[in-house]
């Protein structure tokens, strides 16, 4: 293709992107088609990948195709394996795609579709993709070292320690929030609870099939498991309609929370691989299938967005969570724009599979773009719903009331008309008793997704099946994150305690396994219990806390990245990591300040505690208020603790930058020695 044709194509892409963003940003008072978001995303990602990531690869990082990667130098057929770049891309994407990019945009849709969409696009192109790419490359150049190890070596011991504590903190908060989303999705839903319960015998059956009948045929086994899960979803309808069976599978939120806490402990402490490994595969299979289906469904149906571009809740009075558009929109959507957690994956398994340094661009930058597109799809799913319905599902009883009449009246008064009869009909059509107060984002996403799916396949008759398919997908997915996260947290605690007393570090010593599992489960279980008992639905407090923890981890990753860039002598280009770093510092530190000190009790933890204290004298159950006050103070302390830790790493990094830039310290990076690749001439 000639240069001029290529030039014209990219001009067309840029013009298409500018036009779609203009339509998204400037249309007011009329609904727009979801395809504008898809086209805007496609153009932004194409331009970002073609130009910005190429600039990073050639000018900033100077990728060297002749340098042997650890997958070549340390190849052992187990951890270090030279792998085709598209295979690594798929593997990396499957590892970074979690419930976050689905739930975050659904919650942020309370501001309208515009703020979240713009943040997802800009945040990914200039922040998240850069972070994932840079950390992946730096890990490749250090034999696949983890973020914590790189922080310790490049910034200092304090940096390593803070990275460790931040990772543990984010895991605990993430698991608490994730479990709360499952609880809110399954409470009072015999159909959903039955389907998820059935995944246990199905996974055991898959485990037996995989071990005894077709050893190693995981994909085939996952297809079999998926077929059985679909049968369970169809069977769930009969269960929900049978008074006897429905009774057995109808759980309150506290009961579900206890069941999930027991499950998390058992998954971490007991040798239940026959259950967990197949469930993990099944969850991945369903996840990849649903993401592909949703993308196809959106393109096929190209639905209208009913949510306005901006809602009245940009002033911070939103019912889903309280807080102004800045910083809370940027905190609520983490995984679709920039997520610190990704730096753990980019410095985990992936760097050990990279065959050529140049492929880190596709894997690191490209896979994050795909993740960002998932977030755009979630935003579309949420915004295709009528706004009144969206707010009825996502608003907690503490804001809109318990009775349907009160809820619809409150929501209609906000300017989002909704009828109790419409909500009853919708609940009936998806096979639920009620859809009010289903906070957490998962049920709203399920309704949006089911509406898109049913319009492309099966019509209204199968809306209930699609809804429960979506709920099953989210719950299965989150439970996998829960058991994997609990085990990872347990290993981290065991590793740390092993320095203090050797037997505690032995991963096969049962007293250590039981005590550290109990410690991790108790930590996230506390947050889960707090969320379940919270009259405001829990998400209002916990999702921002999770966002703060996740973005603070991204700050740690970007501090490491900037330090390495400066030591590489690339200070003139350090803005590529410094810009997202300072943006995140602004977002997280402002959000933390609001969550701790804001005088509005719906936003500030301490203000809420003070409000509760003032109600003590007249409260019918003062014991509850004491517990809520303790929760508020604990949440404030956790947010303050994380911010203090990250301030320390920021300070240590800045001191290191000053030392390096002023020449007081030799700018020496701790990379593995250069070894020329043996595969210079061949394509992998």
């Amino acid at each position: 293709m000639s240069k001029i044709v290529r030039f014209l194509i990219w001009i067309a892409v840029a013009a298409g992107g500018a036009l779609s963003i203009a339509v998204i940003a400037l249309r007011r008072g009329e609904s727009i088609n979801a395809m504008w978001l898809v086209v805007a995303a496609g153009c932004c990602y194409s331009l970002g990948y073609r130009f910005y990531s190429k600039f990073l690869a050639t000018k900033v990082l100077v990728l060297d195709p002749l340098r042997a990667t650890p997958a070549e130098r340390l190849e052992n057929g187990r951890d270090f394996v030279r792998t085709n770049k598209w295979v690594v891309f798929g593997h990396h994407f499957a590892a970074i795609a979690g419930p976050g990019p689905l739930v975050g945009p659904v919650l942020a849709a309370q501001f309208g579709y515009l703020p979240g969409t713009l943040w997802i696009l800009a945040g990914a192109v200039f922040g998240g993709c850069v972070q994932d790419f840079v950390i992946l490359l730096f890990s490749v150049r250090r034999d696949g070292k983890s973020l914590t190890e790189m922080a310790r070596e490049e910034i200092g011991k304090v940096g390593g320690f803070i990275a460790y504590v931040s990772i543990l903190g984010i895991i605990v908060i993430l698991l608490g929030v994730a479990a709360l989303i499952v609880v809110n999705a399954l409470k009072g839903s015999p159909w959903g609870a039955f389907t998820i319960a059935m995944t246990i015998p199905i996974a055991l059956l898959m485990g037996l099939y995989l071990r005894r009948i077709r050893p190693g045929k995981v994909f085939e086994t996952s297809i079999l498991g998926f077929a059985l899960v679909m049968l369970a979803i169809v069977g769930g309808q009969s269960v929900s309609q049978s008074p006897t069976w429905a009774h057995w599978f109808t759980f309150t939120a506290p009961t579900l929370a206890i069941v999930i806490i027991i499950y998390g402990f058992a998954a971490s402490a007991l040798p239940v691989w026959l259950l967990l490994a197949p469930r993990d595969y099944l969850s991945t299979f369903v996840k990849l299938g649903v993401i592909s289906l949703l993308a196809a469904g959106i393109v096929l149906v190209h639905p209208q967005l009913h949510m306005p571009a901006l809602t009245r809740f940009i002033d911070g009075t939103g019912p889903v969570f309280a807080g102004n558009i800045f910083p809370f929109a940027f905190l609520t959507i983490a995984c679709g724009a920039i997520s610190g957690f990704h730096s753990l994956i980019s410095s985990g398994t992936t760097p050990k599979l990279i065959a050529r340094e140049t492929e880190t661009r596709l894997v690191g930058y490209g896979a994050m773009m795909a993740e960002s597109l998932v977030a755009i799809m979630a935003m579309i799913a949420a915004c295709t719903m009528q706004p009144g319905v969206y707010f009825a599902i996502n608003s907690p009883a503490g804001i809109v009331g318990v009775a349907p009449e009160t809820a619809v009246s409150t929501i209609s008064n906000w300017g989002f008309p909704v009828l109790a009869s419409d909500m009853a009909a919708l609940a009936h059509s998806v096979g639920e008793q009620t859809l009010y107060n289903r906070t957490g984002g998962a049920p709203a996403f399920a309704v949006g997704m089911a509406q898109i799916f049913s319009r492309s396949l099966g019509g209204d008759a199968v809306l209930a099946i699609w809804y429960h398919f979506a709920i099953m997908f989210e719950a299965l997915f989150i439970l996998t994150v829960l058991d994997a996260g609990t085990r990872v947290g347990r290993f981290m605690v065991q590793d740390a305690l092993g320095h203090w007393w050797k037997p505690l570090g032995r991963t096969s010593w049962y007293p250590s396994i039981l005590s550290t599992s109990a410690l991790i489960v108790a930590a996230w279980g506390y947050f889960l219990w707090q969320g379940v008992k919270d009259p405001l639905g829990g998400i209002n407090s916990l999702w921002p806390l999770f966002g703060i923890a996740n973005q603070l981890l991204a700050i740690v990753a970007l501090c490491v990245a900037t330090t390495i860039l400066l030591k590489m002598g690339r200070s003139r280009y350090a803005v590529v990591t410094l810009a997202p770093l300072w943006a995140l510092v602004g977002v997280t530190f402002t959000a933390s300040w609001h969550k701790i000190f804001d005088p509005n009790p719906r936003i500030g933890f301490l203000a809420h505690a003070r409000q509760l204290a003032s109600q003590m004298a007249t409260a019918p159950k003062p014991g509850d208020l004491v517990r809520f006050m303790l929760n508020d103070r604990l949440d404030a302390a956790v947010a303050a603790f994380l911010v203090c830790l990250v301030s320390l790493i920021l300070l240590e990094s800045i001191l290191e930058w000053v030392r390096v830039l002023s020449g007081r310290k030799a700018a020496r990076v701790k990379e593995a020695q250069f070894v020329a690749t043996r595969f210079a001439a061949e394509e992998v």
Partner: protein
Amino acid sequence: MRLRAFFQTLRAVLDEIFDESAYSRFLARRGMTSSATAYAEFLRETEQGRARRPRCC
């Protein structure tokens, strides 16, 4: 031809995600053929690594 290459790559991606490639490499490394015993041994070997692999949010 391109379509065939696409499906071959897709299959390779799925093999890697679902650990089928890892199992094949294990068999090649140990000089074993696929069996219930070999698969149980593979699971034992990879258990620690899998358990330490974080899942993203």
